[in-house]
């Protein structure tokens, strides 16, 4: 295959993986308003669980599911104390959780090889690299589609309504019978499972992970995808994921063609920052606006107001 094509497909796989994680953040932040700044932690848990399970001989599809489950369990564990906190505190605490987890993996080398990192044997013993890439792409695309469908169902259901209510006033939600701790924990579990799934796909695709692969910058990148694409819009965050990935890659390749006066990484990050600020200022809802909850109830009410139509 042409290297450029390979590069493009490669990029698509990354877009898919990050879109899944972005969807998970959309569940937590976009709909429920949970300032989860520890996204990378669950991504990492998914990746490491997958690596360890595969190493232990678990077949990879099962390992992938289990990784999502393990991440989800961690989501529950962490969320139980954390979701009682104010949103700014939650942000700081979850951010720190990610860092502590990374240090843990690094320090406890008996568990997952510490700083040495782990190699993951390729799942598709395709023998042929290009074929492997295509299979990976298909896998990621399939899982992304499933996640998207899942999120759409969720967002346009009574549960989606509760998620939004929690975002706006959790005390009031509690007062109308919605157990906020339970719901937030459920959302965290869903979000963490999806992030874990993303992590597993990531590990499976790159074949090597180490604590250094999971720096807080990843969390920020995912936030960018959501903010850019539009919190509360599942299509939006997927587009956001694609845009951010392409932008990242674009700036790296750019320097082969133009003589940049500044370091490309610096340029990339400065532009990142500027774009975010501009978006927040001029289009705070992101590229795609949050869609109204669309259920039978909505349609029924419209008919009530306007009996002639439909």
């Amino acid at each position, binding site marked *: 295959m042409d290297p450029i094509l390979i590069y493009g497909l490669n990029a698509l796989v990354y877009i898919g993986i990050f879109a899944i994680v972005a969807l998970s953040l959309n569940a937590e932040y976009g709909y429920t308003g949970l300032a989860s700044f520890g996204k990378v932690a669950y991504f990492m848990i998914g990746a490491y669980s997958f690596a360890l399970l595969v190493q232990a001989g678990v077949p990879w599809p099962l390992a992938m599911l289990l990784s999502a489950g393990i991440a989800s369990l961690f989501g529950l564990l962490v969320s139980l104390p954390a979701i009682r906190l104010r949103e700014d505190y939650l942000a700081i605490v979850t951010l720190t959780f990610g860092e502590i987890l990374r240090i843990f993996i690094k320090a406890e080398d008996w568990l997952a090889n510490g700083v040495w990192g782990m190699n993951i044997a390729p799942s598709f013993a395709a023998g042929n690299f290009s074929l492997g890439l295509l299979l990976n792409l298909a896998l990621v695309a399939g899982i992304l589609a499933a996640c998207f469908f899942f999120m759409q169902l969720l967002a346009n259901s*009574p549960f989606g309504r509760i998620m939004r209510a929690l975002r706006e006033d959790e005390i009031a939600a509690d007062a109308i019978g919605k157990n906020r701790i339970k719901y937030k924990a459920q959302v965290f579990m869903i979000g963490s499972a999806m992030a874990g799934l993303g992590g597993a796909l990531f590990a499976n695709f790159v074949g090597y992970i180490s604590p250094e692969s999971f720096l807080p910058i990843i969390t920020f990148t995912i936030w960018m995808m959501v903010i850019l694409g539009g919190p509360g819009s599942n299509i939006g965050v997927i587009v956001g994921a694609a845009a951010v990935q392409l932008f990242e890659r674009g700036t790296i390749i750019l320097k082969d063609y133009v003589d940049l006066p500044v370091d490309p990484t610096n340029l990339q990050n400065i532009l990142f920052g500027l774009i975010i600020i501009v978006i927040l200022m001029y289009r705070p809802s992101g590229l795609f606006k949050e869609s109204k909850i669309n259920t039978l109830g909505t349609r029924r009410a419209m008919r009530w107001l306007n009996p002639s139509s439909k």
Partner: protein
Amino acid sequence: MAEPLLKVENLVKNYGGLCAVDGASLEVGRGRFVGLVGPNGCGKTTLLSSIYGLRPSDGGRVTFAGRHIEKMAPHQIFDLGMGNAFQFPRLFPKMTVLDNMIIAARNQPGDHLWNSLLRRGKWHQDEERLAIRAMQLLELLNLSHLTFAKAGEMSGGQQKLLEIGRSLMAEPELLLLDEPAAGVNPVLGRQIFAELDKLKREKDMSFLIIEHRLELLISYTDWVYVMDRGKIVLQGEPEKVINDPIFFEVYIGASAAGGAR
């Protein structure tokens, strides 16, 4: 007489050193319309919040439908069949008025993650019914033209109305209302009380209402508690209470500026 629906015994609630509710006791029977009045700051809101679990009480017992609820969280109390409307509305400001209403209905199958996702038929029928009920209430409250407006972009009084509407969506057995008519136009205020009265008669609902508009209390309540300095100082039928010297002393006041307490 059977056990009352709600029974509050010696409820105590302190804020730091201040004793806002100081051993208050009251009862609300099934199908009763009970009023609670008292000077500003005497602890009415605090009493209601403590009953509803919004501010955990420091002492005393609260029994609702035969169960002790003093240690319960609001959502648990809600599940038992109580409802509440805040003195200062707490809506979901970015959600539509309609969603603010529908979400408040009780026992929705869709409240469960599993049902919401996979057993869609289960909640679909429910939605239709809830939407219709929401629209009926919104029309009553003069809000139906705002069905799809964001709750946060309404006037102070409209928000108050939506708060009431939301609490009615749950069709609770007992509804705690904190000054439902404050900030509401008097014409509408009267209509709302009339509707509550109808619910009482037709559905055997009970109400515990804080209200400063005496004319409403007199016309609609069956029983009135008067509170002062954290204690219930007087109770009785509205006409009797209104003419009681204690009521006159603590609530109407001889001299307006005095605020003798």
